């Protein structure tokens, strides 16, 4: 991806200077219905996402990661006493300049549009046609699907569909990205390459990213901070800052003792949950 934002933002993204708050979450709770009436899924979640920060969210299956992300993305209403803001404005509906990458990728693509047109969806009418085309090819190339632009989503493998959704989000050049297990169906190689791409995008655009994953290596490798959800209702059980130098490298970074230490720390934090 090409460099879009100015140098000061990308330096901010390096995580050294104090940064302004992009997203605020105060006493956020969520109730969802179950067979036995409404159940509290999230209880009193408190945290800030800083401008340009990369935060990974981990937790056991069903702990509430998706729900938390949907709250930030304005797709689920938290309880009335909760305060959630994005870019300074209270979240009521999806915030401007923030894009969501869904866990259920198969359902988030429009089956009647080709891959190309699915990626185009968020750009149409917003950028000039030439720019749109360029961005689409660029982001399809990023996810390695330039050759499949003319196919329909149902002609792609699961991992490919997941990447189409990713391409659609990246093509929009958002200021905020909420990603729900975006690399969950990818093989190690494709995943590594996309991690690198995402890292680059993050550095160049200074986007604020919240990223749900089950892959501890991935969380440590990509993020500035790791939140571990636990409990019922879920709260933030652990908050682990990741202070590895950027840019990070698949081989070099993963051999750093600090990387290994963090990995172990996160692993222990997750093992500890759910018992």
């Amino acid at each position, binding site marked *: 991806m090409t460099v879009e934002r100015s140098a000061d933002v990308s330096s901010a993204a390096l995580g050294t200077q104090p940064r302004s708050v992009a997203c605020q979450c105060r006493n956020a709770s*969520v*109730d*969802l*219905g179950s067979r036995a*009436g*409404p159940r509290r899924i999230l209880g009193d979640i408190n945290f800030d996402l800083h401008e340009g920060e990369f935060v990974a969210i981990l937790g056991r299956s069903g702990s509430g990661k998706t729900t938390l992300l949907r709250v930030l993305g304005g797709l*689920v*209403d938290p*309880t009335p006493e909760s305060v959630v803001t994005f870019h300074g404005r209270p979240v009521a509906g999806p915030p401007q300049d923030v894009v969501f990458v869904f866990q259920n990728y*198969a*359902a988030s*693509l*429009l*089956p*009647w549009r080709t891959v190309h047109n699915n990626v185009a969806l968020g750009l149409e009418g917003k950028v000039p046609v030439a720019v749109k085309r360029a961005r689409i090819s660029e982001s399809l190339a990023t996810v390695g699907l330039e050759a499949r632009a003319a196919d*329909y*989503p*149902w002609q792609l493998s699961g991992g490919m569909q997941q990447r189409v959704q990713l391409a659609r989000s990246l093509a929009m050049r958002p200021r905020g990205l909420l990603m729900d297990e975006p690399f969950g169906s990818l093989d190690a190689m494709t995943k590594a390459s996309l991690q690198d791409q995402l890292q680059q995008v993050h550095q160049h655009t200074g986007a604020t990213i919240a990223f749900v994953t089950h892959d501890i290596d991935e969380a440590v490798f990509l993020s500035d901070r790791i939140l571990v959800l636990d409990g019922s209702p879920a709260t933030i059980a652990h908050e682990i800052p990741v202070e590895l130098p950027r840019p990070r490298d698949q081989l070099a970074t993963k051999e750093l003792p600090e990387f290994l230490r963090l990995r172990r720390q996160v692993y222990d934090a997750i093992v500890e949950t759910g018992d």
Partner: protein
Amino acid sequence: MTTLGVGPADAASPVEPGERRRTTPARGTRTGSLPPLRGLLPLVVFLASWQLVASRLSPFFPPPSDWASALLDLSRSGVLLPAAFATVITFLLGLVAASVLGTVLGLAVGASARTDRALQPTLEYARAMPPAAVVPIATLLLGFTGTMKVVVVTSAAIWSILLNTRSGVRQLNPVMFEMARSLQLGRFERVRKVTFPALLPSIFLGVRVAAPVALVITLLVEILTQVDGVGALIAQSQRNYEFAQGYGLILVAGLFALLVNALVSMLQARVMRHRPPA
């Protein structure tokens, strides 16, 4: 399309933007397809203004108050109730038969391209037949009987159910069927446990379109053959220039359709109450 309408699931209940962000998708709130009675307001306003200007109109447009008194006379004379009964019976039998046959045929032509191709021209031929051409042949074959009426009604009401079912089958996610086959469900079991429930929203849509059609055709057969029923009364009213009575009967038929629609919607809400809130 692959995933579009995976959702028998999601097709279940309509949604409005304001309601979708509720936190508790409580059961019992799914009145989505049941139109509230306040929706009658425009019609009431229309009839009220008719009432007001009626005296200035021709005898062809008697005021609604006359309709009521004409209906009252009719029911006092003991004609209305048996006629209404005959019409309701024909309508119900026709609608039920159309629902069953329409679903079965819709499944058959939806699931098999070959069956679809084989039956397509014949079905489309039949679909284009006006009741006026069908009725004389039906009476010839079945006589001036209740059976004849039900057959004609069924043959006209079946199409929306058949076509909606057929289109529903084609929109289902193939993974659902593959799952059923992989679990070694028998053909019948697959239809009963997977295909049919998945198609319920389509079938109900078909029935909701078909219900008033069935009523209209019931009345039409009665108008054309004068075999019992409210339709026969409507035709007589119009021929006797008793327009008030005719309008009154049509209004009664409309109210009955509204009732049927409400019942179908309630049945649908009940049958599909476990579907995810859209």
